[in-house]
């Protein structure tokens, strides 16, 4: 069975320094009509799990009803959250614990000052408060840290923190590049990325909790493991667009459309998934051609950076183009 990552809303109740400005001005929520289609057609299409993202998914005005409908239809669910609303919604999670597979809390620093500098004053305590609610109510949770120049030195502390908090694990992921973020000095160079990845792989060997890295880390093979490309995971944005990748959803108002495969207002989930499978085939064929032509650069071994270029998700003025370690390779990405 597969899972569907559903962007319940592109709105958020925080204003994080490593997010992009459009998110902060966002106004959209997933409609009931789209949810109906997912629930009616998902299981027939081999989907049994819905993973809610955003924005902050728990601020969807009908979050309570959505959870009830999802569970009533027999799907399991999980969500990624900043934790702010967990003290409010935990009774809903307790009531549906049979279907609830856990929350992933975004914690971008092992230290309060580091996290709060990125996500706003008081936000660290909100995450740990959410963790305490989960522990007391016996609800599963894990932690996710986006690696930036500010928190790169706290990776081992983060693993220790996850263990001491009773987290089910900790996952690290690289920051998605955009011009907004470059101006804030948060990005790691390619060398820094590889260095922190090496530290994480070392920690994984000895940590008492599961330690993982989200896809996007350096991969020797051009054909890295990524759930959508393995057809294990599909992504739906709040407008009902099935997309190849959830990263930078809505960035530049989704201007390129290069990874949009269809909208569930206009087609069935089965039709959209068939387009998804075909698109993955084209993607892989394009990549094989690129490798065969000897055009696969160092930058391209970071899968998300390859896809950001391939999908034209950031403009030609992307900081990737001026990055000191990628200036030779980032400007000639294929257009779709």
């Amino acid at each position: 069975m597969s899972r569907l990552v559903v962007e319940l809303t592109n709105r958020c109740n925080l204003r994080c320094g490593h997010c992009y400005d459009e998110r902060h001005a966002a106004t959209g929520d997933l409609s009931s009509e789209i949810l109906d289609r997912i629930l009616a057609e998902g299981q027939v299409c081999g989907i049994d799990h819905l993973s809610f993202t955003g924005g902050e998914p728990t601020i969807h005005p009908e979050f309570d009803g959505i959870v009830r409908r999802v569970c009533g239809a027999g799907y399991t669910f999980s969500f990624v959250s900043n934790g702010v609303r967990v003290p409010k919604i935990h009774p809903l999670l307790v009531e549906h614990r049979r279907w609830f597979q856990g929350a992933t809390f975004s914690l971008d620093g092992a230290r309060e000052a580091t996290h709060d500098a990125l996500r706003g004053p008081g936000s660290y305590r909100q995450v740990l408060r959410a963790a305490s609610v989960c522990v007391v109510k016996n609800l599963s949770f894990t932690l996710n840290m986006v690696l930036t120049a500010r928190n790169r030195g706290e990776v081992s502390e983060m693993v220790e923190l996850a263990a001491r908090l009773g987290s089910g694990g900790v996952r690290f992921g690289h920051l998605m590049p955009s011009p907004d973020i470059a101006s804030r000095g948060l990005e790691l160079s390619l060398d820094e990325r590889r260095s922190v990845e090496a530290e994480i792989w070392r920690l994984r060997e000895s940590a008492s909790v599961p330690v993982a890295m989200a896809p996007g880390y350096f991969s020797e093979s051009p054909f890295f493991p990524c759930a959508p490309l393995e057809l294990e995971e599909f992504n739906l944005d709040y407008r009902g667009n099935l997309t190849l990748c959830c990263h930078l959803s809505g960035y530049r108002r989704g201007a390129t459309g290069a990874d949009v495969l269809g909208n569930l207002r206009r087609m069935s989930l089965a039709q959209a998934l068939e387009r998804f499978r075909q698109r993955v085939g084209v993607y892989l064929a394009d990549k094989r051609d690129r490798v065969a032509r000897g055009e696969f650069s160092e930058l391209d071994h970071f899968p998300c950076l390859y896809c950001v270029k391939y999908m034209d998700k950031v403009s030609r003025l992307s900081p990737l183009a001026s990055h000191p370690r990628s200036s030779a390779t980032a400007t000639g990405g294929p257009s779709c």
Partner: protein
Amino acid sequence: MLTLDRHVGIHPEVVSTELGDGETALLHLKTKTYFSLNGTGARIWWGLQRGLSLKEISQLLQSEFVVDSERADRSVVELVDDLLRQQIVQAL
């Protein structure tokens, strides 16, 4: 020995969350120690948050629960003593 005329304060590194069913979750951010307080404990915690003396908190319990003064006093002292040992609260 803890006495009822004492005031104690909540450690600044403790976050607490009322869970709506009478229970309160506590987490000490430095030691990463969790506590769960039941209805009575949560009421004692409520008094501590408002700066009441232990005697005042005991009287609060006696006014809200069917409990004699001796047992209320003991409940307050025992819990606060435990919270002091765990550095969840600190003597003022």
